[in-house]
């Protein structure tokens, strides 16, 4: 079953600035893929369109079986709230909230009843190995732990697709590796994950890699036995 599908997507910001040009691909449920490309190749624009934070000028986007064209802001945010999870390079945690409260923020807009949120947040934090840090604030956690909290926030609502924008970009290699291992184990449990990265070494270890260049999808490579399988 398809988690996300892009068909002939084009995004331009001015007549002469085309960020994405005729991009088509589909992500099946349970896939783990990387999207790579140099700076300015259109990776961020693609992430925004995949996450419905931006709309294409042409083409269609289907998330979790629903075409997004013509949907109202309310409907789009509804899909975003329930079907998509985001992980950012800079974690984007609220320093004033504890780890558990940050995870609860991810459930706030997904229609999860108040009473259920704490238990779900605790479960998600346990899943990323931070159950003993649930009452810590971000500044009391290491970079790797902060990214784990962000991952817990993203997976707590069990989204159809997890979109990660340079999830290891702000981490050292050891912490970065742990995050990749965590994402791999989540994928093993059935979570669909798309990582946007400029790290081609990381992308090469993933089962599938899409390569962008000048806004065009130039390759879509599937590896039968990716390096990650051998972790």
């Amino acid at each position, binding site marked *: 079953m398809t988690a996300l599908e892009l068909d002939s997507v084009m995004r331009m910001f001015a007549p002469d600035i085309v960020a994405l040009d005729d991009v088509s691909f589909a992500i099946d449920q349970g896939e783990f893929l990387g999207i790579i490309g140099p700076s300015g190749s259109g990776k*961020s624009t693609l992430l*925004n369109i995949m*996450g419905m*934070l*931006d709309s294409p000028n042409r083409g269609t986007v289907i998330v979790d079986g629903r075409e997004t064209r013509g949907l109202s*802001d*309310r409907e789009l*945010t*509804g899909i*975003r*709230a*329930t079907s998509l999870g*985001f992980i*950012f*390079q*800079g974690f*984007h945690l*609220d*320093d*004033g*909230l504890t780890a558990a409260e940050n995870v609860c*923020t*991810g459930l*706030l*807009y*997904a229609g999860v*009843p*108040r009473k259920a949120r704490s238990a779900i947040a605790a479960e998600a934090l346990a899943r990323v190995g931070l159950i003993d840090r649930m009452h810590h604030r971000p500044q009391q956690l290491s970079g790797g732990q902060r990214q784990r909290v962000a991952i817990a*926030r993203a997976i707590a609502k069990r989204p159809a697709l997890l979109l990660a924008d340079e999830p290891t970009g702000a981490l050292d290699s050891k912490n970065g590796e742990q995050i990749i291992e965590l994402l791999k184990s989540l994928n093993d449990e059935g979570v669909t994950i798309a990582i946007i990265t400029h790290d081609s070494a990381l992308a090469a270890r993933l089962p599938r890699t899409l390569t962008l260049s000048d806004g065009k999808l130039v390759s879509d490579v599937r590896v039968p036995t990716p390096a990650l399988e051998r972790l």
Partner: protein
Amino acid sequence: MSRGERAARREAREAHEARERNRLPARAARAYEAIIDTLNTGTLWLRVRAMRATLSIVGVAIGIATVVLVASLPASSQAALEERLTALGADVLRIDPVQTSTELQKLPTDSLPRLARVGPVRSVFVAANLHVDVQRNDRQRAADNALVAMAVAGDFSTVLRSQLLQGSWVEGVRPSVVLGSEAARRLGIPRLPSSATSIEIEGIPFTVVGILEPTELAVDMQSAVFMSWEAAHEWLEFDGQPTVAYVTAFEDSIREVRPVLAATIAPDKPGGVQVSQPSGVLAAKETSRTTFDGLFLALALVALTVGGIGIANTMFASILERRRDIGLRRALGARRLDISSQFLVEASALCAAGGVLGSLAGAGLSAVWAIGHDWPVVIPPVVVLGAIAASLATGVIAGLAPSVRAARLDPASALSLE
């Protein structure tokens, strides 16, 4: 329709009704959760950034405190003014015979009962200048000869707001006097001595039984010595005709009662007496009230506007600072309405807190100021409640534009800010 079908229909209807009954509480519960979530999210920034929130609240509070202060102080000063004016006798009227060369230089002997019969008149006293010689004793004259002896009848102390400093009031035919404060000073009897003391009036010793406190209303009375109407008859061959009368009336009926008094006391010749208002301040009082109201209302509006602009400014700055948070919430599934409600609740909470704090501070400062100036503390509840309501309304108005702006923020560009 068979019995079985009827039973099945009834069951279906009952099940439907039960579902409808359950739907309403479920909706109410969801609405309640949504309200709590909105309030929670809207006040989150205020709670986790306590210092910043406190500073913003203080900014609002200063504006509101100014509003309460400028609206309360006039009330206190107005009350003080009114108290003073009332102390000076804004409700007192004085009746004198018109001094002509021919006749009626005195009032009728039955002036007291006549005046007392006028409806709005609350109290009356009449006095007669006896035109007699007042001395300390036969060897020691008063400091000057300006002391007058007066016979009095009626409610002297109520009308003139004059209290006895010492002793008791004169009564009966006994030759006794009460000294006005200035008369006491001039006679060299500032306090009542422990043993009985007397002064001489027309050579007759009168026992001093009391000394009055100074009265602001009738300064001429301060240099008088007072005896009872009966004593004046008995000892000084007094003819019983007052030379002056004072009445107090309800303040709001002063204007109406004034022309009635002349006709009452001299029905045959109303022009023969003149009625005056010793304080002469009623008009000034009304003028001052109007002036205060207009001026301070304008000041309060200026302060409130300044407060509102400050709040809007704080909210705009806050949105610029929190673009990333707004982008994140949009990515997490917040609708535009969620974002605008968050900022609107935040602005309103900020202002409500500032309003309450400012009102308390304003009321406190107003009280301190009033006490410092020896004014009565008057903090009209309508001012305090109005200031809080105005603050809340200002928060909503000032937060409206920033909250719409926050909701319209493009989530993709907001998130790309690092």
